């Protein structure tokens, strides 16, 4: 067979062999990945989709740092039992500002794509401090140090600016006031609180998340957990039965 004959010659040329490997290995990615950037239907357009506030972003970065994705998915599939257990299935647009996405691949614990608003802040604080205090048979690690570690807010402006470079629509005012907004979101009675609502929208939650006086990592994580599934209301208003 001539194909085998051609290969018989190809395997005498190392550089030619490498080029052939690159060509053969490139096709799959080009066909499956490149169109995801060009086909408009890939990501829905949701008018009320908002960006993370600096406090929520800081919480998300702690979620990343602690490797929570290893046990919790944030992607509800289009399956009846998942929709009934967790809520409307996840839309692509809901993670369009997620660098990286945290869809996860394993549910040692439950999916948390729609966790926001399901439990009180107090429950989250108690659960993160010692999961077995609220769920006796839980096997989640305890994160007691979150409540005792003060939150680093000074460089949050640089984080927002980096994300803007990558396409997340943060404004100049959001970037300039990031540390102030992070503090104000957890201080609803402060003067700066109104600015947070002005910049991030009426739907932004302003609360003393951890209940403590100092702004800690616990505030950021709870603020993030409470916004999961709440960046847009579109999944709850449109028909999402698979």
């Amino acid at each position, binding site marked *: 067979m001539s194909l*085998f004959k051609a*290969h018989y010659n190809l395997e*005498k040329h*190392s550089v030619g062999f*490498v080029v052939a*490997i*690159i060509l*053969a*290995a*490139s*096709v*799959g*990615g080009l066909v*499956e990945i490149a169109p*995801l*950037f060009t086909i408009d239907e890939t990501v829905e357009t949701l008018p009320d989709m908002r960006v993370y506030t600096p406090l929520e972003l800081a919480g998300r970065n702690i979620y*990343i*740092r*602690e*490797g929570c*994705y*290893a*046990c919790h998915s944030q*992607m509800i*599939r*289009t399956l009846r*039992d*998942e929709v*009934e*257990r967790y809520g409307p299935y*996840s*839309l*692509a647009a809901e*993670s*369009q*500002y*997620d*660098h*990286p*996405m945290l*869809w996860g691949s*394993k*549910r*040692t614990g439950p*999916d948390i794509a729609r966790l926001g608003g399901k439990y009180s802040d107090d429950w989250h604080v108690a659960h993160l401090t010692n*999961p*077995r205090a609220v769920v006796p*048979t*839980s*096997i989640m*690690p*305890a994160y*007691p*140090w979150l409540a005792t570690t003060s939150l680093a807010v000074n*460089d949050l402006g640089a*984080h927002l600016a*980096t994300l803007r*470079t*990558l396409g*997340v629509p943060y404004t100049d005012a959001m970037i300039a006031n990031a540390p102030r907004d992070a503090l104000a979101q957890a201080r609803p009675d402060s003067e700066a609180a109104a600015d947070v609502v002005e910049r991030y929208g009426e739907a932004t939650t302003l609360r003393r998340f951890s209940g403590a006086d100092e702004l800690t990592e616990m505030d950021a994580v709870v603020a993030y957990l409470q916004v999961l599934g709440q960046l847009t209301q579109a999944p709850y208003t449109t028909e999402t039965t698979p």
Partner: protein
Amino acid sequence: MIACLTPSERRIGLFLAVCLALLGLVMAAVGKQDPMAVHGFMALVLGGGLFFAIGGTLEEPAPDAARLHRYYDDPIKVGIVLAMLWGVFAMSIGLWVAGLMVWPDATFGKAWSSYGRLRPVHTTGVIFAFGGNALIATSFHVMQRTCRARLADQLSPWVVLIGYNLFLVWAVSGYLMGVTQSKEYAEPEWYADLWLVIVWLVYLVLYLRTLKRRAEPHIYVANWYYLAFIVVVAMLHIVNGLALPVSFAGAKSYPVFSGVQDAMVQWWYGHNAVAFFMTSGFLGMLYYYLPVRAQRPIFSYRLSIISFWGITFFYLWVGSHHLHYTALPTWVQNLGMTFSIMLLVPSWASAGNALATLNGAWHRVRDDATLRFMFVAAVFYGLSTFEGSFLAIRPVNALSHYTDWTVGHVHSGALGWLAMVTFGAFYSVIPQIWGRAGMYSPRLIEWHFWLALAGLLTYVFSLWNAGITQGLMWRTYNAAGTLNYSFIDSMEAMRPYYIARFLGGALFLAGICVGAVNIWLTIRGAQDVAGDRPFAPQVAE
């Protein structure tokens, strides 16, 4: 070992050590309080240590010219020892995280020891540290023997080995400090990723330069697989690692892709890390050590060609099967499923080719535990690839995804295939390059084999059961038409399986510890056999 380098190689090595120390100094200086500074300090210490080690040998005489008529095996020896050390370390961490599933408070209340930080230490440690060092070491061995040529120079193998292990130390220590991108199997941050690109390019250039010096007209099939491993892993790593650091003075970066595109790129990478790191490279190992140990030629040359190009072409399409029923467009999911099923053909062609090679040597499989390791590896390669294609079918995936079935599947590949073929290859190569008549104790190889097999079977059976139970409980409805089990019900049901998995892991870990002791006793003994020499001597410089 350093005295084996030529004077000019020592000078270049000295220069590189200074560069590494300076890089570390800069990272430590700009990083200040950031974890990146700790990594800079590590590079500084390593660069400084190498500087003094090499500097002390500058005045020593040039090595004997006869070395050019021998293979260069020193980096292989170091690579094998590193692989075994990492293997014992990473599997111990694996046992610990398996224990956390049963005893969740076994973290001492410390941040570094929580499950989310230890888990990537285990995965990176086994796949990239144990597996990676084994691949680098055996590739140096296989390329020299199948080309009948000495490594192209004596310095770049060390750049590859030392550079790669620095990357690993950065990665693993980074996770413990909370430095991670949370991209599965691609957790290290931007500077470690960039460093790996440099190391990998040196590796590719060294491989091609050595191939160029070969005394054989044809490039042997094992080298095709090692080449695909090097080239495609570079491609995947660069695209998936694209990220923008918040500041060049800190570790934190944001990946350039987001949401659905990031998910697709991540699993295009993730599944092909399985394909080209955990499969292709180890097939290279299998294609050399199995026929050598069995003393039989490869069953079919044409089957080798079909399976090689099938794997190299099909695998890159299948990543989307990790994203069935998600927000990824359905057309991509369906392509992923289709190619996953087609992939079974080249996968089983490889496994079948390996098993058919053993025809006429079954008595050796029975008597020789080293060959039996590779036989079991080929069987589990066939089983795992079948399971992989099966799990990629959408309705099956609806049940299995997000459950422990996936974890069981990965371990059937990682323990049953990757680790088994590595042990077989190590027991074949160690006596040869250290100049021993055989391993210190054949009985200990038997012990290792049976411990590993018992551990493997205990592990995968417990997690198959766990995963299917989980998947079924999540979708069980009662007579009233509502979900029958809460999530916590399904978690509680896992406990016996998690205990069984812990025991399986303990057996496998005990096996590798026996192997490490046996290897240590073998290389500690005196040399009794001369090493082999190239048939056609090549001039190195």
